[in-house]
């Protein structure tokens, strides 16, 4: 339970969890924002209108997954760092996850990084595909990381491997 531990269990995602069919169709945003707080910048972040307009600023966001193309513009618009993009069938073996990072030094493209789950446990290693600087926010980055397919809905953070420290 998020309210007890500080991290959510996968079933607490509810309708924010894409179906297998949707995952088949390509990348999609996962809005891990499940508690009502006064915050709404994500509703203006999507140029395709996939994040539906709020009735109240305290609404949790609702996404139209048919409109979402997984571009990830919403990731850097979220002050809570709670939006991720998952491209499950990125290739034969691997998924691609786009996640926000505010931790220096940033990894570099091609780096091997440690993959962490919501609880901060190391669950594997992955490869950084892209380090994206965004217009909305120059101080953080969106990291594109390749992860084993079975970890697509587990990995939510990356850490630089120790052997990368200079």
């Amino acid at each position: 339970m998020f309210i007890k531990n500080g991290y959510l269990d996968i079933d607490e995602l509810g309708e924010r969890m894409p179906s297998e069919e949707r995952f088949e169709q390509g990348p999609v945003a996962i809005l891990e924002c499940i508690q009502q707080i006064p915050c709404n910048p994500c509703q203006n972040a999507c140029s395709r209108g996939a994040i539906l307009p709020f009735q109240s600023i305290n609404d949790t966001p609702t996404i139209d997954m048919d409109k979402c193309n997984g571009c990830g513009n919403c990731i850097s618009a979220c002050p809570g760092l709670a939006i991720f993009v998952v491209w499950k069938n990125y290739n034969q073996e691997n998924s691609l996850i786009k996640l926000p990072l505010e931790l220096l030094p940033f990894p570099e493209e091609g780096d091997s990084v440690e993959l962490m789950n919501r609880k901060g446990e190391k669950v594997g290693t992955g490869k950084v595909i892209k380090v994206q600087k965004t217009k909305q926010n120059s101080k953080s980055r969106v990291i594109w990381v390749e992860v084993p397919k079975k970890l697509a809905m587990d990995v939510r953070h990356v850490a630089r491997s120790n052997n990368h420290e200079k």
Partner: protein
Amino acid sequence: MRIDCDVLIIGGGPAGLCAARSLLGTGLKVLILERDPFLGGQLLKQTHMFFGSKEQYAGTRGFEIGQILTREVQASPNITVMLETVASGYYPEENFILALEKEKKLYQVYFKKVIVATGASEKSLLFEGNDLPGIYGAGAVQTLMNMYGVMPGKDIIMIGSGNIGLIVSYQLLQAGVKVKAILEAAPTVGGYFVHAAKVSRMGIPIFTQTTVKRALGRNALEGVEIVSLDSKWQYVPGTERKWPCDTLCLAVGLSPMSELLWQFQCEMRYVSELGGYVAKRNPFMQTTHPDVYIAGDVSGVEEASSAMLEGTIAGFAVSKALHKMLDSVDQVIQNSQTFLDEMHVGTIGEKIRNGLAKVEVDVCL
């Protein structure tokens, strides 16, 4: 020395700056007294992106909001700022505020209206050894780390999982400090889930129903003895364990700095949901003393976003009371009131709503 102004604003944090900004172009002579050597208050320590909506700078980092507001206020010819100046008391016989600048110059400040935006001070926690070096309030840790670039310690335990405890833990991690754990006496995490999720995925455990029993160490902190709490907040015998650490950070809440409001003889009420004693006020942030307005944490401990809205309301309300207002003043005040009410909707806002219900009164403007 004597100073005369139309509007005196005490405190140059988010509430005071927004109040001042609401008085731009009114022709009113505005004076801000700020205790610190700079404007911005707590905003300057906030490195995270703010929540709220676009109108409240959502998505902008707190210190950048402080810089924006400071620039606007400093560029204004009708606003004077006195830094390193403490409003040390109200003298009702002559109706002035005594201000002490840089610990040497005294001023009698006369005003028509005053907006008290003094903020809040940190609460502490009672336990054996809580005076050992290495035990800080979360605000002190933020000041050292984010304002002066000084690392407060190397191996930290955080007490309190409210937004401040969670945000400061995250900032410590960003600065490269090891945060061992966050302890929370209540059965659930106090702050926003999204803040908790950020520290959780970086591997920081949050232990609910757990607190510090005593601090260990002779000349400085060497560790803490922690203990589990039952549903009645009592120690569970036999659950004590000792953890080494060199720093303990207390993020156990804030208390409004309402001393001046007592001196103004505003009607006060103790409201635990708002952090302590707060002045009763109407929807225009006017207290039961007709010349005294409040905004920000002194009117009830909340987020900086609320403080900015309250400051805006108080500033415009004062301009109206002094008949130097914009034509659209009623609309502008109403918009801010609506935003403020919206922030208090929902489960997270429930506590604040309950608290505000105890201090909101219909004193006339």
